[in-house]
């Protein structure tokens, strides 16, 4: 009885095995065909390369704009928090100027953080730069301005977490406020915020995937164009997703190494 069942089971497994191997062979062939159709034919892989290049370009330039904006805004806001009341007591033009710039920064932060990035991108492309046809530059500016708002808050937190004694030591040497910021506080702030800043960069990389809304051929758009041409969604979209994933994983690994190095050294 048991032997019979065992024999039958063996036959079953054998048959199933063949089936699996067959269907795998079939699947592999399908895969190769699909791959060829989507990426090799008409050199469609070049679209992905071009799109990927644009994605990296937009991310990199927007990141630079974001950092520049972020530093300026963080300095204005933390200066206002730290010195505003003192300057107000003293009177004079200094406080008025500082309060004015602080107000502008607050409006900027509120608007940028309160609206979706896609809407900001569309407004940039169709309203503010309506006469421009350079969609990549428009995307760079839109994502840069967007990123600046988030980076500013990261930097502000960093500035505030630099030990107060550092600021006092700089001032007691005779360095003025700006010099103390540039030579003493900001370099230490960068060390504190570096991991968070890198994460913001990763977020930015993924956010640029909506650049296709204004016709920019970034990585996502490139995959979508291939889909439109070959009428098969699986290959191009999974490929796009994998490319993002690999890049993010590489960045994350780098950030982790960086964090460990910063932890190990105190300088």
């Amino acid at each position, binding site marked *: 009885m048991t032997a019979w069942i065992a024999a039958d089971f063996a036959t079953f497994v054998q048959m199933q095995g063949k089936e699996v191997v067959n269907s795998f062979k079939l699947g592999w062939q399908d895969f190769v065909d699909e791959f060829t159709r989507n990426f090799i034919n008409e050199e469609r892989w070049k679209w992905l390369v071009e799109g990927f290049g644009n994605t990296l370009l937009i991310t990199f330039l927007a990141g630079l704009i974001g950092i520049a904006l972020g530093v300026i805004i963080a300095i204005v806001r933390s200066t206002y928090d730290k010195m505003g009341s003192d300057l107000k007591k003293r009177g004079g033009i200094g406080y008025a100027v500082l309060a004015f710039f602080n107000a502008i920064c607050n409006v900027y932060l509120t608007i940028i953080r309160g609206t979706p990035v896609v809407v900001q991108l569309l407004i940039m492309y169709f309203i503010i730069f309506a006469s421009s046809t350079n969609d990549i530059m428009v995307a760079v500016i839109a994502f840069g301005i967007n990123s600046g708002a988030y980076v500013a808050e990261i930097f502000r937190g960093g500035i505030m977490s630099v030990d107060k004694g550092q600021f006092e*030591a700089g001032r007691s*040497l005779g360095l003025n406020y700006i010099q103390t910021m540039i030579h003493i506080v900001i*370099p230490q702030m960068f060390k504190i915020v570096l991991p968070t800043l890198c994460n913001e960069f990763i977020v930015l990389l993924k956010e640029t995937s909506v650049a296709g809304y204004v016709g920019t051929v970034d990585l996502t758009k490139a995959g979508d164009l291939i889909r439109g041409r070959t009428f098969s969604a699986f290959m191009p979209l999974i490929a796009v997703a994998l490319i993002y994933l690999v890049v993010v994983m590489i960045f994350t690994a780098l950030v982790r190494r960086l964090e460990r190095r910063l932890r190990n050294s105190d*300088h």
Partner: protein
Amino acid sequence: MTTDNNVLIKVDGLQKSFGDIEVLKGIDAEIKKGDVIVVIGASGSGKSTFLRCLNLLEEPTGGQIYFEGTEITDPKVNINLHRQKMGMVFQQFNLFPHMTILKNMTIGPMKLLGKSKAEAEKTAIELLERVGLADRKDAYPSQLSGGQKQRVAIVRALAMNPDVILFDEPTSALDPEMVGEVLEVMKSLAKEGMTMVVVTHEMGFAKEVASKVVFIDEGVIKEENEPEEFFANPKCDRLKDFLSKVL
């Protein structure tokens, strides 16, 4: 303003409040060139606040401070210029952790006194040799002991060639066995005639080095005298009480 050229710092009716809390309630003081003023008092008495007001790290809420004949409490005065002449040493050292010892010492002279890198480094190394740390010039602050950090902090202040150095409890954050090395440096400075204002709990240092000891309590100077008389014959009860606890 006084006509006495020897007066380096003159304090008139100095007041400081933090919100509703009145920390300094009118302090008058005169610090002459070469003086070593040791300020003592219980914690919370306002002695550190007094010191920090002298270079305007805390902005006074009343009274005037004159430094080398200029009223530095006047908002129109560029305090940064005067701070170059007033060194400060902190309880927590406050060395710049992202710079080597040498860079810590040269940033002030290079950015503010217009010295070349070579000049500034030469002075810095001479000063480091003086405190026995020249071989650590390329180290970072985190690689030094507390006593070494404080010695560097002192010569960092000296590198600006100041007319006075303010010490805010310079040995309070140190392990006991490191207090001596820092006090030695301070004593040698005093012997060379450096004007110093020192907030400290080191009564031995006060007895040995001070030209005047000042007791601050409840935001006013309760008693001041030359060290021998100060410790031998304290007049006010608060000081007698304080000395009986710390000596």
